[in-house]
């Protein structure tokens, strides 16, 4: 009850300050399972997109909240869990997980079995228990020691040998991807938890999610490069619709370091859904997704 009231109050404030207008271009607001991915400029992005969604979708859509910011006071924790129904992610931990996927591609001896089945499989086993998967582990250990700092270099280095996939020709190109998230999840999950695990959990229970694939907030107008979590989730849940979204102007409402928001109109533009093409690589897909988000700025 209290959460509901707070939700209404918050919604009123957000509308008063920013208008929180949703512009649906390319797809209607629809109660299907979706992954909304948007640019990230401010912590308020979460609130913005939450407020822009229609009431009916808000209850089945769970935004992602960075634990270090949104859970550092009891009030914020209460509001994120009770009002926004958010999924917490560890920002620090996203890096290793994202770094991992490219690794298996280095040895493209991944299974060439029916891709879809294989994609679905990891979804089942990621969270509940890790034991049965251990046999599949071998490819993983090599990059367990990738540090977050080394992430970018690793990614760059591994991006270059993208050509190698030729060996397994056209159709079986996808399997590496399937293996990709199966593998990375293990090293990360073994000690604590896979950073993507909460999202996978939310998706498996049928909720839509809102993610910010840049990982951190940008300071410029241009979004940064997308992290690979989006690709991982997209290949894991091929039936979930991927909707790009552009959140406009939020950084002006509350720039970094300020606490009082200024009333400035903001809008959230939802674009046409995209999907991972048959055999599409990780980086091209992420760049395409990023372009889809940026394109919404000018519609």
């Amino acid at each position: 009850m209290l959460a509901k009231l707070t939700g209404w109050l918050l919604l009123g404030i957000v509308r008063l300050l920013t208008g929180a207008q949703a512009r649906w271009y390319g797809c209607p607001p629809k109660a299907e399972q979706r992954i909304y991915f948007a640019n990230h400029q401010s912590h308020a992005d979460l609130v913005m997109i939450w407020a822009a969604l229609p009431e009916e979708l808000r209850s089945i859509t769970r935004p992602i909240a960075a634990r270090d910011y949104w859970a550092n006071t009891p009030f914020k924790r209460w509001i994120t869990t009770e009002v926004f129904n958010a999924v917490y992610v560890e920002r620090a931990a996203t890096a290793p997980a994202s770094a991992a996927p490219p690794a298996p591609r280095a040895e493209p001896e991944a299974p060439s079995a029916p891709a879809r089945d294989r994609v679905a499989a990891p979804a089942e086993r990621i969270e509940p228990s890790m034991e049965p998967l251990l046999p599949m582990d071998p490819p993983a250990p090599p990059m367990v020691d990738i540090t977050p700092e080394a992430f970018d270099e690793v990614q760059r280095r591994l991006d270059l040998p993208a050509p190698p996939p030729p060996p397994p020709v056209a159709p079986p190109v996808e399997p590496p991807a399937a293996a990709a998230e199966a593998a990375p999840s293990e090293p990360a999950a073994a000690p604590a938890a896979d950073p993507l695990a909460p999202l996978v959990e939310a998706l498996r229970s049928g909720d839509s999610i809102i993610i910010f694939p840049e990982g951190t907030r940008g300071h410029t107008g241009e979004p940064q490069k997308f992290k690979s979590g989006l690709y991982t989730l997209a290949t894991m849940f091929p039936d979930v619709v991927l909707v790009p979204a552009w959140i406009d102007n939020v950084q002006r409402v509350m720039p970094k370091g300020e606490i009082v928001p200024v009333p400035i109109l903001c809008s959230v533009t939802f674009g046409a859904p995209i999907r991972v093409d048959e055999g599409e690589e990780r980086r091209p897909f992420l760049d395409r997704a990023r372009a889809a988000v940026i394109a919404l700025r000018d519609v």
Partner: protein
Amino acid sequence: MNQFLRSLTPTEQVAALFLIVFGLLVVVSTTAFFLTFRERRNPVHDAAWQAELAHYRKLLGTTWFMAVVFWVGWALGETVATVLFALIAFFALREFITLSPTRRGDHRSLILAFFVVLPIQFWLVATARFDLFTVFIPVYVFLAIPVASALADDPSHFLERNAKLQWGIMVCVYGMSHVPALLLLSFPGYEGKSAFLVFFLVFVVQTSVLVQHVISRRTQRKPFAPNVSRSFNWTSWGIGIAVASLVGALFSFITPFKFGQALAVSVIACIAGSMGHLVMKALKRDRGIPNWGKKGVGVTGANGLLDRVDALCFAAPIFFHSIRWYFNA
């Protein structure tokens, strides 16, 4: 009829005005509702016609909303009416700031404008402190805003940014605050009827803008300042002023003015309003936007409130101060 209206108390007269407005709205809305059942033979025309009707009905909905809001504002007294106009000023300023680029260093000045200047200005109106209310923004705020900006330590485009903010405050807050201020003017023998003055101003100014717009659409004359406005030319401007002023003069019976006086104040208000509209158009061209919000589709989500009220924002202060000076009200 006239005798009957005159015999009513001021409150009853205002109520009668609202009754007439709501009656007209009911008639128009009912007609529009029945029109939706009509079908055109050509499906293409039908679709276009239905779309236009839908747009028209939406506009009608806005009119209903505004009429109800005004009625509630009047029914609940001057304070509520002032709060109402404060809200309009807030939304207009929000739209203005959205479409004027600001930098991080402006954040504190913006907070000052929205959460300090605006409430204080309208509080001054509500408490009828006319002397302070007249000078508060042009004197105190115009000095305070640049100070807040300077303290933010960001010199780039300093003058430009401050000018924009000051201009926004001037138009949206200062201008708009003069509309409820009309409610507090006191004319001998006109107590309790100030709501008519607000109605008079809004009605006359909107008529002039509307007539001017329609005439320039119809006649297709050469625009006088094509880079600023493709529709502005002196002929349609003159006709708009003349028509609206005449209408204003005919409505002199709801004001404390005589026929000639009503004509004169109407001319003043119309000139100020239509010129203000032109100035706001120039600002819009500078920002490279056709409207302050084009039917809610702009990426900023601005919905064009400023387009509706900009003429009023310019007309109100001039109207207010000229009648206050002339009639010593």
